[in-house]
């Protein structure tokens, strides 16, 4: 009896959370996988037949998919790495002892809380023709005031990257700052007594000891950037053409705008597989910290 209750109690505790996540997350996940092998009549849920990998082949042959896949790769690397480097700078500054560092930190938390859709709107307004950024550009002699930055395929993607750095680096800052606070202050005091410079302390104490948090931050940010439709939607809508389309926004378009549930499900599964690449090491890090010391 005692043994039975030992097995059942944890299940009983997890059951409520299981039920809700089962229906809202797991069932949709499995059904999306199932639907990805079906041909479904466009604009409806009427199943026309099993097509195996037909939807996947169809999508891989779509040039818009290939552009969005490439853009996701670019954003995942060219967005995440600078975002975390910016975060490293900000976290190092916040970790210094000076009057006002609390306020700076509160501002960073506030920046983290800005909804991605609003972030997209804010940057859209900054980047309008005759807006702030093209005006600054015209003072520097780089472009006309009326230049449409978001209308230029090359700069549109750069704009999405910069807006993503702006939106997602505060979260990385908080992760890195948490890491820096695990470093015992005695280490810094010892370095100070030995006469180490700021750079040497940073290079030989801070960096090695926060390496793990640096990895966690990169993985989190590259995943958020690749999976967030909101920011791209509000900033460029994926355009001009497909210049700023990413895997996530492409999935949205196929599923909801083209109303093609079969192909939409196949893109969804490709997106999930993509996310699993960052997810794997991330979950490994997190669960190792949770249970590693036992």
């Amino acid at each position, binding site marked *: 009896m005692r043994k039975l209750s030992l097995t059942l109690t944890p299940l009983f505790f997890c059951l409520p959370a299981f039920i809700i996540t089962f229906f809202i997350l797991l069932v949709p996940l499995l059904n999306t996988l199932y639907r990805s092998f079906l041909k479904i009549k466009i604009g409806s849920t009427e199943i026309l037949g099993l097509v195996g990998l037909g939807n996947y082949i169809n999508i891989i042959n779509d040039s818009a998919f290939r552009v969005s896949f490439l853009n996701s790769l670019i954003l995942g690397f060219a967005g995440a790495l600078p975002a975390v480097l910016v975060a490293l700078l900000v976290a190092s500054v916040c970790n210094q002892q000076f009057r006002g560092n609390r306020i700076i930190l509160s501002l960073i938390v506030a920046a983290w809380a800005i909804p991605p859709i609003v972030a997209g709107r804010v940057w859209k307004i900054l980047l309008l023709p005759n807006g702030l950024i093209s005006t600054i550009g015209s003072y520097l002699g780089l472009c006309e005031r009326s230049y449409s930055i978001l209308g230029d395929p090359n700069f549109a993607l750069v704009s999405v990257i910069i807006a993503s750095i702006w939106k997602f680096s505060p979260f990385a800052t908080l992760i890195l700052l948490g890491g820096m606070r695990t470093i015992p202050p005695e280490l810094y005091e010892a370095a100070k007594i030995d006469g180490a410079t700021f750079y040497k302390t940073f290079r030989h104490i801070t960096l090695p000891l926060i390496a793990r948090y640096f990895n966690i931050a990169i993985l989190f940010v590259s995943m958020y950037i690749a999976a967030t439709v909101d920011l791209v939607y509000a900033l460029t809508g994926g355009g001009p053409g497909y210049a700023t389309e990413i895997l996530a926004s492409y999935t949205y378009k196929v599923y909801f705008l083209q109303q093609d549930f079969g192909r939409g499900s196949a893109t969804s599964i490709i997106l999930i597989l993509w996310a699993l690449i960052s997810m794997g090491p991330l979950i490994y890090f997190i669960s190792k910290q949770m*249970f590693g010391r036992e």
Partner: protein
Amino acid sequence: MRISLYNILLLIAVVLIVIFYFGPVFWTILISLKPEEEVYSIGLPSKFMFDRYYKVLLSDRFIPTFLNSFKITFAATPFIVLLASPAAYAIARFREFKGRTGVFILFLVLMLLPHVAIAGYIYSMLTGLGLYDTIPGVVLTYTGLFTPFAIWTLSSYFRGVPKEIEEAALVDGASRLSILTRVILPISLPGIAVTTILCFILIWSEFLVAFTITLTYNARPVTIGTLLFVGLYELQWSEVATAAIIATIPVLAIAFLASKYIIRGLTTAVIRG
């Protein structure tokens, strides 16, 4: 304070940080206060249009979504904490729970799933249940979407609670459930508060899933409210800016005021697992 290279660099870094993160927000606030015809000019507005804030907030294109967001957030957040607490406690503390690493990993995978990839089937399910474009439908969906996140932050908090407290209660013969409700939850109030705040911010900011499972002012949250100015009416960037600012004020205020606790909550989750 002596003037050294270190102090000068620190000052420059602080100024750059503030400009980078708050310049864009400041510019948006400025646009929201300008007369529409001055949106494309640089410099301060010729007159400050404070009344636009009333106008936008109270307009029938915006106020329903703003109220919906409050309803949705206040309804979903307690559900999430209620469902997540026992699971988080079991994962954090039940040594006899053999599969807990697996369960924890499953919840992490579900937490990190890209929402756009499952929104399509959620839409089909809600339509089947007659919950499409209703607030209960959105609340149900959000409860499912964000429960894994709450399990993560809560379980990391519960791990920090001293073991002796619960061991004493166990020896006294208390059941696990009564330990959770009478011992763990009361002393974990800070952790629960942080989780509540974080869920509030996540739910308030959610856009994409809401966009797919709602259609009208019945249930659309404020993240969509910020968009409706575009498309239906002639585009007025000053109004878009105003709507964006109003929609952000609640989360911005909470985040700023509770920043100490948010930092502690997030870093605990990341550092303790």
